[in-house]
């Protein structure tokens, strides 16, 4: 449908006004809200993720795209809730205990929302107990741990240990942040690692599909 393609292009370009207008037009034309999300908005954010990974766009362009999608979701979410439609996957995200940094976590959160995950953002300085409680409460498919500082990396290990010890079989754990490497992720038993916000979507999708 041409309007859905236009919507995808508008989101990818971060055109907020066009994104909202096209969403309204699609709904007025009888397009189901779920189709608007899955065939219009999500592909737009996928383009953003791909271009970001290749350094064709940078954080400002990613932010305006995520904001455009957020504005469209304000129109769509009440309709989706009314129809009883929820995102297939739920992710918990936060910055680990001892770390108050949040820009990396916020970017991943935006990109996961853009990939149609339900995202519960626990904020910063999140204890292992709080991650675990949230994962249990929301039946999370994915838990994302962020850390900026080398000094807070040990808190990731503690959090991974706490979640694994609780035996949440359907919950995968993913880590990221400036000092984090794949080697460190392997070392502490995390299920996945992503070096940037674009890759974080790919890894998240792969992990939840493995768990399904």
């Amino acid at each position, binding site marked *: 449908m041409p309007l859905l393609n236009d919507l995808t292009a508008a989101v990818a370009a971060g055109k907020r006004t066009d994104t909202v207008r096209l969403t309204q037009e699609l709904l007025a034309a009888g397009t189901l809200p779920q189709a608007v999300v899955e065939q219009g908005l999500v592909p737009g954010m996928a383009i953003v993720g791909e271009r970001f990974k290749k*350094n064709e766009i*940078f*954080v400002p*362009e990613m932010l305006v795209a995520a904001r455009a999608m957020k504005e469209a979701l304000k129109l769509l979410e009440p309709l989706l809730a009314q129809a009883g439609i929820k995102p297939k996957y739920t992710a918990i995200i936060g910055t680990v205990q001892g*770390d*108050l940094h949040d820009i990396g976590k916020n970017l991943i959160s935006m990109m996961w929302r853009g990939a149609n995950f339900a995202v519960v953002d626990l904020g910063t300085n999140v204890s292992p107990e709080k991650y675990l409680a949230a994962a249990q409460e929301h039946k999370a498919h994915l838990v994302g741990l962020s850390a900026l500082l*080398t*000094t807070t990396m040990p808190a990731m290990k503690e959090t991974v240990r706490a979640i694994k010890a609780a035996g949440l079989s359907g919950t995968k754990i993913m880590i990221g942040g400036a000092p984090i490497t794949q080697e460190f992720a392997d070392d502490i038993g995390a299920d996945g690692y992503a070096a940037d916000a674009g890759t974080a979507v790919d890894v998240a999708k792969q992990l939840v599909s493995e768990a399904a």
Partner: protein
Amino acid sequence: MTGCERVERMFARRDQDRVPRCDAYWPETITRWQREGLQWDHSDALRLLGTDFQSLCWSWPAAFPGQREVLAQDAETETVRDAWGGVARFWKGRSGTPEHISFGCDTREAWETIYRPAMLARPNQIDTRLAALRFQEGRQLGRWTHLTGVEGFEALRRLIGDEACLIAMIEDPDWIRDIVTVHTDVVLRSLEGVIAEGVEPDGLWIYGDMAYNHATMCSPAMYRDLVWPAHKRMADWAHARGLHVIYHTDGRVSDVLDLYIAAGFECLQPIEAKAGMDIRKFAPTHGSRLAMFGNIDVMKMGTNNLGLIEEEIRTKFAAGMATRGYAYHSDHSVPPQVSWQTYQAIIGFIDRYGTY
């Protein structure tokens, strides 16, 4: 050879007796080292390292200098309204990046009616007498003395926040240019005040983190358009006074090295290894035009594996020293995972591999 001579020769790519040295430490690292045998504080660690650098002052102009209003606190943190009008949560008694909760300067209107006039009304926010005393101390110790100033991009993020700043770079670039310009005006006027006090520094060390582990925060083109002119202005100001220019940024900046050189930056620090920066790659291509200061991986230091650390220092020193334009610094700040015994061994490796 004094530290000052050493650093001057580094900028001139002339032989030195050894590579110049400086370092930074997390406060928790110093606390650990004090338990393990370090007698005093970070300045003692720097003295044992043999630092060649002496900072005279720090210029990061605020709209409301001295403002620090504690709004809330718990056992671990306190929430403070700061001198830039923002609200942030800080750790009590330990280091770390604060959580920025809100920014007072959150619209262009707030900037134009409150923050811009406030900043311009306080053109000199440096204790020039203290800077003069530090200059005398630096000269007595034979160190290379430098003014320190924060650049426009870092100032933007602190004043209006990451998200607003980065979105405005697309949607309201003139606002961004104005903030960067006003900030740079005030920094340079403040630094001019230090020189007016009779201080004769050797260099200007510009601080600004404009990248993270994946890339620069904005595209090189956007940097060139919105921030780079202020970088060049700061470098031009320094060069007009016979000062060399060091630029500090964390993160992966490999795509803007040529822009730094064009701005007049002569030295890059600390060259963050965990962001994929490696002077073994960049020294051969850029080392004749841009001195390399740092790049010794704190993640490797934190393993306390002396073989691994020695290899890191040996190979990177070899690459940097081949251009005569290299100085030692960790690639960020030495973390508390590094024992005092390990750091003493690191100093030994610097002695061994850092001699010309």
